[in-house]
C-alpha cells in the first residue's frame, strides 16, 4: 500500500475518520469493499492522544475485519492546539512588530470582557511585553515600503531573539497585508539568522487588513506549532509500528482537511476542527435531502458535557464566520460558525440565595461528573435530571459501558425539591430541564435573530452524547417542528472527518472603490488567489478530482463601518463592475432590508476557498419495514408535568418506514432519543429518525 498515490476511489484501502475527545476517541471507518460504515470508540489517552489513536485504529480495523495495513487514509481531528491555547500551555514565543506597536497585544481592540464588572481582567496576552521586539519595517496602505530594516538591524534583532530562548517567533508589519511578499522576505531574512526558531510571517499566512487580528493569527500559529509538530511525529511513528502506510490528513476549522505538511506549517487552521466536522456531517446529511420536500435548512445541536453548541446550514452549506473566539482571543480565519447556547449534560442544578432554580453555568464536567457517575459529584446535573425523569436508562448509558446510579441522582434532586417546595425528585428534575431548555431556546433565538432567521423555518439535527436526548425538548420550546436524528449521532464528528473535502481559504485585502476599471483588478486578484489555491491542492497528494472554487468579497458602502461578505460564485470570471455592485446591493437588502443605489461601494477584501471534493460516502440503506415496530418494553418517563408509560424501542431493530407516536424512547449504542407526547417518529431509508410535531402542544 503506497501512501503517496492513495486515492479513495475504487481499489483504494479503507479510509478512517478520527475525532479525539476528552473521554473517547471516536472512529468511523468506510469499508473499501462495500462502503459500509464501522463505528468504534476507544477511551482517550489525554497524556498522549496518539496512543488512543493508534490503538483504536487497530481495534476499529479489526472490528471491520481488516488489518491496519489495509487502511489507506486517515482523516484526523485534534484538539491539541485548542487545548494549548485555552490553557495557555503553548510554546514560548516572541513577536516582532513595527516600531511603535509593541503593545499591539496589550491594547488589542480596546474592549474589556465586561462593562459592569470592575474586577474583570483583560485576557492574558500570548506574548508578554518583554518578548515583543520592534523593528523598523513598515509599509503604506498601497504596499510600498516606507521603512526597511537593514542587515545590521536584522542581525541585532536575531541576536535578541536568540538570547530570549524562544521556540518560535511571529512577525507583523503595519500594512504588511498589502505587501505579503515583502514581509515574507523579511521573515526569511530573519529565519536565516535564527536557525531552529520557526518564524511565521503574518502577512504571508493571512494577508487581511487589521493588524491586531492578523497578529493573533500569526501568534496562535507560532504558539501551537511546536506542540503539533511533536504530536504528528509521535503519531507517524505509532502508525509505522502497526504497519500502516496510511496517508494522514488533518481536519480544519473550515470543515475541510489538509495534508500533514500543511497542518504542520499552518496549525492555526486546525484549532476548531472538531465541532466543524460534526456540522459538516450534518450539513451533508441535510444536503442528501433527508428532510424530504422542504428546503433543507438545518440547525445542528451538539450537546456535550459542559455546553451545547448550535450551527446553521442552508442547502447543505454551513454558515461560516470570520470572527470567532478562541480562548478569549478573536480569530478571523473562516471557520464553520458554531455558537454556544447554554447548558450541557454536566451543568449543575442549584438553588440561589433567593430560592430561584438555576442550571449552570458551572459544570461538573467529566470529573467528578454527575452525581450518578459515583465519582464524588455531590451536586445534581442535567444528566442526573435525565435519570430522575426516566429519560435515560442507568444500565444503558454509552451502550452499557458505564452504569449510572439513579438512586443517587434522585436523592440529590430530592434535596433540590425540598428547598423549593416541590414534591419529589422528578418534578425538580423536570423543572431543571425546563430551565435548561428555556435557556437554550432563548440563546438560539438570539443567535438566529442576529442573522434575521426564524427557528420555525429549520429542522433540528442533534448529535453528540446528549443532543438526541434533549433535541425534542429544545425543538418544542423553540417552535421547531421537525428533528432529524442521524444514525450513530454519537460519533458524528468522526463521520464528518472521514468525508471531509480538501479545503483551504485564501484572502487578500484591497480596499479599493468599485468604479470603472476595478473589475479587471478584482478578476486579476481572484485569478492569483485561484492559482495559489490550485497549486496548494496539487501539492496535497490527495487530489480528489472535482475542484470547486468559492469566491466572495467583503464590501460596504463608503463610510460604513461594517463590511458584508458577498458570495460571488454566480458571477462569471469577467463580470463587469455593475455585476459586483448588484451582488452587494442584493446582499445588503437581504441582510439589512435596504439598498443605497447612489452610494459609492468599496471592496475591502477578496476571499477564495479552494475545495477538492471528496466523493460522497454511500448512504446506508435500511431494509423496508415489515409491519409495526416492536418496542423492547415500556418505562415510566416524567414529561409535561406527569408520568407517562413510554414505549422503548431499540434503534438497531427499526427499519425504514417504521413509525410510532410519542411519548417514546429510542435507545441506540451511543445515545438515547426522546420523543415527546404530541410528536410522531419515523425512520427513513438512510436510517435517519425523524421526529415531527403532530399537534400544537
Amino acid at each position, binding site marked *: 500500500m503506497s501512501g503517496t498515490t492513495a486515492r479513495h476511489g475504487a481499489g483504494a484501502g479503507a479510509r478512517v475518520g478520527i475525532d479525539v475527545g476528552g473521554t473517547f476517541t471516536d472512529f468511523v471507518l468506510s469499508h473499501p469493499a462495500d462502503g459500509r460504515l464501522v463505528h468504534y470508540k476507544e477511551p482517550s489517552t489525554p497524556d498522549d492522544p496518539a496512543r488512543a489513536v493508534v490503538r483504536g485504529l487497530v481495534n476499529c480495523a479489526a472490528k471491520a475485519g481488516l488489518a491496519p495495513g489495509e487502511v489507506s487514509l486517515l482523516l484526523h481531528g485534534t484538539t491539541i492546539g485548542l487545548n494549548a491555547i485555552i490553557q495557555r500551555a503553548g510554546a514560548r514565543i516572541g513577536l516582532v512588530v513595527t516600531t*511603535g*506597536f*509593541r*503593545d499591539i497585544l*496589550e*491594547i*488589542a*481592540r*480596546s*474592549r*474589556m470582557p*465586561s*462593562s*459592569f*464588572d*470592575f*474586577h*474583570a*481582567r*483583560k485576557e492574558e496576552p500570548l506574548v508578554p*511585553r*518583554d518578548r515583543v521586539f520592534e523593528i523598523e519595517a513598515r509599509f*503604506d*496602505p498601497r504596499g510600498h515600503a516606507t521603512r526597511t530594516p537593514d542587515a545590521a538591524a536584522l542581525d541585532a534583532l536575531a541576536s535578541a531573539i536568540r538570547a530570549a530562548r524562544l521556540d518560535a517567533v511571529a512577525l507583523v508589519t*503595519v*500594512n504588511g497585508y498589502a505587501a505579503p511578499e515583502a514581509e515574507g522576505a523579511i521573515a526569511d531574512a530573519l529565519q536565516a539568522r535564527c536557525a531552529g526558531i520557526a518564524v511565521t510571517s503574518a502577512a504571508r499566512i493571512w494577508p487581511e*487588513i*487589521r*493588524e*491586531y*487580528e492578523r497578529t493573533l493569527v500569526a501568534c496562535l500559529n507560532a504558539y501551537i506549532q511546536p506542540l503539533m509538530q511533536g504530536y504528528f511525529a509521535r503519531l507517524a511513528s505509532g502508525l509505522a509500528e502497526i504497519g500502516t502506510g496510511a496517508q494522514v490528513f488533518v481536519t480544519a476549522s473550515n470543515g475541510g482537511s489538509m495534508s500533514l505538511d500543511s497542518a504542520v506549517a499552518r496549525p492555526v487552521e486546525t484549532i476548531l476542527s472538531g465541532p466543524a466536522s460534526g456540522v459538516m456531517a450534518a450539513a451533508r446529511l441535510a444536503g442528501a435531502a433527508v428532510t424530504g420536500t422542504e428546503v433543507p435548512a438545518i440547525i445542528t445541536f451538539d450537546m456535550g458535557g459542559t455546553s451545547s453548541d448550535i450551527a446553521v446550514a442552508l442547502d447543505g452549506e454551513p454558515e461560516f464566520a470570520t470572527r470567532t473566539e478562541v480562548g478569549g482571543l478573536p480569530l478571523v480565519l473562516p471557520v464553520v460558525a458554531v455558537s454556544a447556547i447554554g447548558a450541557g449534560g454536566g451543568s449543575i442544578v442549584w*438553588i*440561589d*440565595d*433567593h430560592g*430561584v*432554580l*438555576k442550571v449552570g453555568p458551572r459544570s461538573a464536567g467529566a470529573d467528578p461528573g454527575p452525581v450518578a457517575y459515583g465519582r464524588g459529584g455531590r451536586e445534581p446535573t442535567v444528566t442526573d435530571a435525565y435519570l430522575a425523569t426516566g429519560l435515560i436508562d442507568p444500565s444503558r448509558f454509552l451502550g452499557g459501558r458505564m452504569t449510572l446510579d439513579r438512586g443517587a441522582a434522585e436523592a440529590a434532586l430530592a434535596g433540590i425539591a425540598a428547598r*423549593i*417546595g416541590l414534591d419529589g425528585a422528578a418534578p425538580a428534575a423536570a*423543572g431543571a430541564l*425546563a*430551565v435548561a431548555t*428555556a*435557556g437554550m431556546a*432563548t*440563546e438560539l*433565538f*438570539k443567535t438566529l*435573530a*442576529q442573522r*434575521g432567521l426564524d427557528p420555525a423555518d429549520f429542522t433540528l439535527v442533534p448529535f453528540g452524547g446528549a443532543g438526541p436526548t434533549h433535541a425534542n425538548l429544545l425543538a418544542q420550546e423553540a417552535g421547531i417542528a421537525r428533528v432529524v436524528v442521524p444514525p450513530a449521532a454519537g460519533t458524528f464528528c468522526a463521520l464528518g472527518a472521514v468525508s471531509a473535502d480538501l479545503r483551504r481559504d485564501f484572502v487578500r485585502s484591497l*480596499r479599493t472603490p468599485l468604479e470603472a476599471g476595478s473589475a479587471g483588478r478584482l478578476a486579476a486578484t481572484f485569478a492569483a488567489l485561484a492559482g495559489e489555491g490550485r497549486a496548494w491542492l496539487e501539492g496535497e497528494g490527495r487530489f480528489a478530482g472535482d475542484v470547486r472554487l468559492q469566491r466572495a468579497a467583503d464590501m460596504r458602502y463608503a*463610510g*460604513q*463601518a*461594517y463590511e458584508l461578505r458577498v458570495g460571488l460564485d454566480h458571477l462569471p470570471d469577467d463580470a463587469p463592475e455593475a455585476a459586483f455592485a448588484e451582488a452587494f446591493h442584493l446582499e445588503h437588502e437581504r*441582510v*439589512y*432590508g435596504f439598498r443605497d443605489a447612489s452610494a459609492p461601494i468599496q471592496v475591502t477584501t477578496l476571499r477564495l476557498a479552494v475545495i477538492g471534493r471528496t466523493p460522497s460516502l454511500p448512504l446506508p440503506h435500511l431494509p423496508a419495514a415489515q409491519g409495526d415496530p416492536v418496542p423492547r418494553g415500556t418505562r415510566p418517563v416524567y414529561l409535561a408535568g406527569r408520568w407517562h408509560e413510554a414505549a422503548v424501542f431499540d434503534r438497531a431493530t427499526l427499519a425504514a418506514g417504521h413509525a410510532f407516536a410519542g411519548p417514546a424512547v429510542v435507545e441506540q449504542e451511543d445515545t438515547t432519543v426522546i420523543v415527546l407526547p404530541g410528536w410522531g417518529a419515523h425512520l427513513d431509508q438512510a436510517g435517519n429518525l425523524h421526529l415531527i410535531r403532530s399537534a400544537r402542544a
Partner: protein
Amino acid sequence: MRLDPVTLEILGNKVAAAAEEMCFTLQRTGRTLYVKETADFACALAGLDGTFFAYPRSIGVSGFVALDCLPAIAAVGELEPGDVVLTNDPYRSVGLATHLPDLHLIEPYFHDGRIVAYGWAFVHCSDVGGRVPSSISPVNHEIFQEGLQIPPVKLVRKGRMNADVELLFRANSRTPDANMGDIRAMLAALATGRRRVEGLIAQHGVGAFLAGQADLLDYAAEKARRVLRRVPDGVYRFSDFLDDDAVTSLPVRLALALTVRDGTVTLDFTGTDPQVAAAMNVPSHGEPHAWLTLRVLALVNTLDPTAPLNRGLLRHVAIVAPKGSLVNPEHPAAVGVRHAAAIRVNDLLNGALGLALPETMPAASSGLVVPLVVAEATEEAAPNVQVVEPMIGGTGARYGADGVDGRDSGISNLANNPVETVEAEVGIEVLRYALRPDSGGAGRWRGGSGLDLTFRVLGEGSQVLARGLERLRFRPWGMRGGHPGAPTEFVLNPGTPGERRFGKIDLLPVARGDVVSLRTAGAGGYGDPAERDPGLVLADVRRGLVSAEAARAVYGVVLADGAVDATETARLRADLPPRGPAHDHGRERATYEQVFTADLLDRLNAALFRLPLARRTAMRRAIHARVLADLPGAFPGHEDVPTRTHRARLVAEIEALEGRVHP
C-alpha cells in the same frame, strides 16, 4: 415572590432575551454610524410603572437601565394599540432622554384590551438640528442651540405614522432620511418586542407575565440590597474636579456625601457646582438617574454578577441633587456632552465608595474618553472626517490587583480602530499607538498605564479635534498611599525645536509633516509603592512600563544586572517617607485646595444657590476671576504661590456674597 422558582427563572431569562432580540433587530435594520459602529442604542421592556423589568446585557448602551418612561407616557394621555410615543426632550420627558440626539420611542403592549407592558427603544441619531452639525458641541450654553426639542408626542397613532410630526421633525434635521431610517429600525425592534411579549403571554399566561415583572424587580432589589449591606453604615464624603467647563478655564467641582444605612444608599450631591453655561450638565431631575448611579450598579454587578439587570437594582438608592446644579440642571441648560461630567461622577462615586470599601473599590481610572479626530481637506466641499482612535486610559489599581493598562470599560466599552483601516481612510501615518511608560500611578499595586497615540500628518489643510480632553490639570487620584497617575499631555511636534504643549484644545490646525501626540493620563495606584513586591517592579521594568529611574525613585527598588539588589533596595526603602492612607489627588489639586478649600467651596456654593439661577454663573465667574487675578497663569501648576492671601481674598468674597443673600 409571586411565581414559583422555576417559572421565575424561565421568565427572567426570556424577557432579558426578548430585550436583546429587540436590540439585534435594531442593529440589523439600523443604518447609521451610531447604530452600526458605536452601538449607541438600546431597547428594553418596561412595566406599568414605566421602569425597566428587562434590559439587555450583551448589547447596547449598558448604563440606561435606570431610566423611567412614565413621565413621557403620562405626558401624551391615553394610549391605544398601535400608538408609539416619540421624545428627545430631557426636560419634558423628565430625564428619559438625556440629550437631544437620543430619540426615544415607547410602544404600549396590549393584551385583551389593557396595557401589560411597554416596549422602549432609543438611538443616538445623526443630527437633530441646532448650531452645529451632529447637534453636539461642548460650548453650547442653551438647549435651544442643541437642536429641535420634541416633547413626548404620538409619532404613530393606531399603527399610522403621524405625518405632521414627521414633517416637522424632518424639517429640523440636517440628516432627515438617516433619522427616519433610525426610527424605522426602532419601530422594527418594538415590533419584535411585541411579538415576544405576545408569545410569553400565550405560553405562560398574562397573570404569570405581570407577576413575573414584579418578581423580577423584587429579585433584583433583594440581590442589590444584599450587596449594599456589605457597605458599612456611615457617611462618606468625596469630591473631584473637572479641569474646566470648556468655555472658561475654571475647574468644575463635584461633591458627594454618600450615606449608607443597612443597605440603603443616599447620594447627596450638595456642594457640587451650579450648572455651567456649557453643554456638560447632567439632566437627572434629582432621580437615581443612570448617569448618577452607574458606579453603584457596577458595584452590585461586580460583587453579584447573577443579579438581573432591571430598575429593581436601584430600589434602595436615593438621590439628593440640588436643583440648578451641574447634576440637576434647570431648563434651558445645555446637556449635549453630559457624559463628560458623568465620567467624573463615576470617579466621585468610586472615591466615596472606596472610603467605605477600601479593599473592593479601585483608585481612579484615567477618567477621559477622547475621540481623536482628523478632518482633512478634500476636493469636495465636505472635509474627510475620521476618528483616529477613541482615546482612553487604564483602570485604577485596587487591593490585590494592578490596574488594567490602556483599557477601561467604566463608562463605555467601545472597540478601537485598526491603525491599518485608519491609514487607508485618512492621510496620516501612525508612529506610535502604545502604552505610556511611567504613567500609571505607583503603588503597592500599580495603576493602569495611559495610552500614547502619535501620528504624522501627511496631507495639507488638516485639523485635529480632541474633544473630551481631561485630567490635564487634575490627576487621577491614588488610594491608600498609592500615587496619582501622570496627567494627560497633548503635544505638537514633540522633541523638536517647534514643540508645543497644549492645554484643553478643541480644534488644532496642523500642517503637512506635523507630528501630533496625545498621551492620556495614567490611572491611580493603590497602597504604598515601598510595599510593592520588588519582583513585580522588576517585571514592570523588564516589560518597559516602569523606568529603572522610577523604580528607584518612587518604588525604592534598586536594580543591578537585570535583578533586584535586595540590600540596596532595603536601604533605600527605609529612607522613603511613609505614605498616609488618604487619597492622593496630586500636587496640582493640593495647591488648588490651599486656596479653594473644600469648606470654602461648600460655603461658596451654598451662597451661590441662594442667588437666582440666572445670576449664579456670572457671580461664580466673577468671584473666581477676582481671586485668581494675581495668581500665576499656570496656577495650580506651580507650587510656590502665596496661597494664604488668596484664600483670605476668597473668604472675603464669600462673606460679601453671604451678606447679600442673607440680608
